[in-house]
């Protein structure tokens, strides 16, 4: 049975939503009483089951959410892992490092430093929860600014960002310098 008007509006809102949507907000948006919203939600939840949709609509703390069918989780896991090696590529690690030291920073700023397009890498890092958007720059186009997350600190075993090694300590050591010198010096005896 096709969805009722109210149920499909709720479904549309849940499709667009990232966070759970409270019934109160639905009442406000649909301009119908709470019990009618409840009915529509019930209809929607039931319809997803009956139609064997790939997602379910669940009531959780704070409201309603559309999420993938629990019995299909193995596919979602595989999907989440596709095309992604199990370790961060050096490109991704460098991008993450730039965000860590320069935050908040825009994609364009990272790209300018790395000299390549970083959209894909930034999306990957964001998906994995290591970085997150924290606002927008004031300049033209108001680019999104990224910063590292608590999850990033946790993974590195750090309490706060200030614990990252200061970058001035990272100038090449004396052995690197003399190695470079050696390569410029003619071999003895030649």
């Amino acid at each position, binding site marked *: 049975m096709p969805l009722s008007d109210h149920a499909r509006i709720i479904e549309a809102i849940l499709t667009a939503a990232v966070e759970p949507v409270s019934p109160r907000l639905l009442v406000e948006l649909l301009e119908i009483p709470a019990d009618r919203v409840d009915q529509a939600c019930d209809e929607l939840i039931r319809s997803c089951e009956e139609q064997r949709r790939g997602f379910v609509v669940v009531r959780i703390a704070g409201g309603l959410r559309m999420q993938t069918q629990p019995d299909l989780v193995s596919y979602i896991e595989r999907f989440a892992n596709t095309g992604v090696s199990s370790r961060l590529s050096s490109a991704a690690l460098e991008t993450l490092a730039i965000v860590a030291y320069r935050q908040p920073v825009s994609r364009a700023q990272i790209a300018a430093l790395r000299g390549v397009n970083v959209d894909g890498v930034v999306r990957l890092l964001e998906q994995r929860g290591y970085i997150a958007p924290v606002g927008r720059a004031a300049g033209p186009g108001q680019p999104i600014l990224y910063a590292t997350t608590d999850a990033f600190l946790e993974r590195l075993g750090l309490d706060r960002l200030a614990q990252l090694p200061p970058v001035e300590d990272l100038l090449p050591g004396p052995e690197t310098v003399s190695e470079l010198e050696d*390569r410029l010096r003619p071999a003895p005896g030649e």
Partner: protein
Amino acid sequence: MVVTVCTPVYEGPLDALLHLVTTHQLELYDIPLGDVVEAFLGEMASSGAVDLSALSEFLVVLAVLVELKSRRLLPGPDEVETDEELEGWEVRDVLLARLLECQAYGAAGDVFAVLAERAAASVPRSAGIDPTIVVDPPDLLEGVDAAQVAQAYRRATAPRPAPVIDLAHVTVDTLTVAEAVSELVATLPGAGRVSFRSLTGHLATRLEVIVRFLAVLELCKQGHVTLDQGCTFGDLEISWTDHAGAGGTGADETPDEYEG
């Protein structure tokens, strides 16, 4: 500043040239506009300061000349012979095609605007993988510590290395350019005109010759020698010009140290 130009058929002030051309007393075909520009640039260079009014006047005159000349080159409506007329239509056809193409892209832009507006009515799903699943994609940061992040930052922000040329295989000549300079300073004064070939004839390797060449250039740059080359790939004549330095070896006459 009166700009004078010198061309095969005309020599004189620039504004007079324009007058002669517009009154058909001179055939514009015969005047290479490149010469006119060069003459003007020469005047500008020699007069030192930039004379803005002369510059703008020149630009106006030259723009008129260019327009006149291009009109003469493209058959216009005034003098029509059958062939020329046909050619003229070809030019117009090309122009027409371009205008039509532009209008088509303008129309395409309108179509794009409609498509974009329609597409904007739909919001794509963006919630991503349910947080409840906490799919454990392998932790990409496993085994990475803070020091490695710092290293990565340094790598990312290091000035991009210029391509490194490994010089290990090059036998470096014992004589440096600086040494060659002092050698020349010792031998050239009083020697008159010296040809580069005679100066380097005894040398065995190309590298040694190049070192001498760089030394000569360095001395020339510092004004101690003048160089003269009869023709392309001709021999290079070197003359010491430091009259004061002809006999003296005072420190003030010593060429600056070569820093290369």
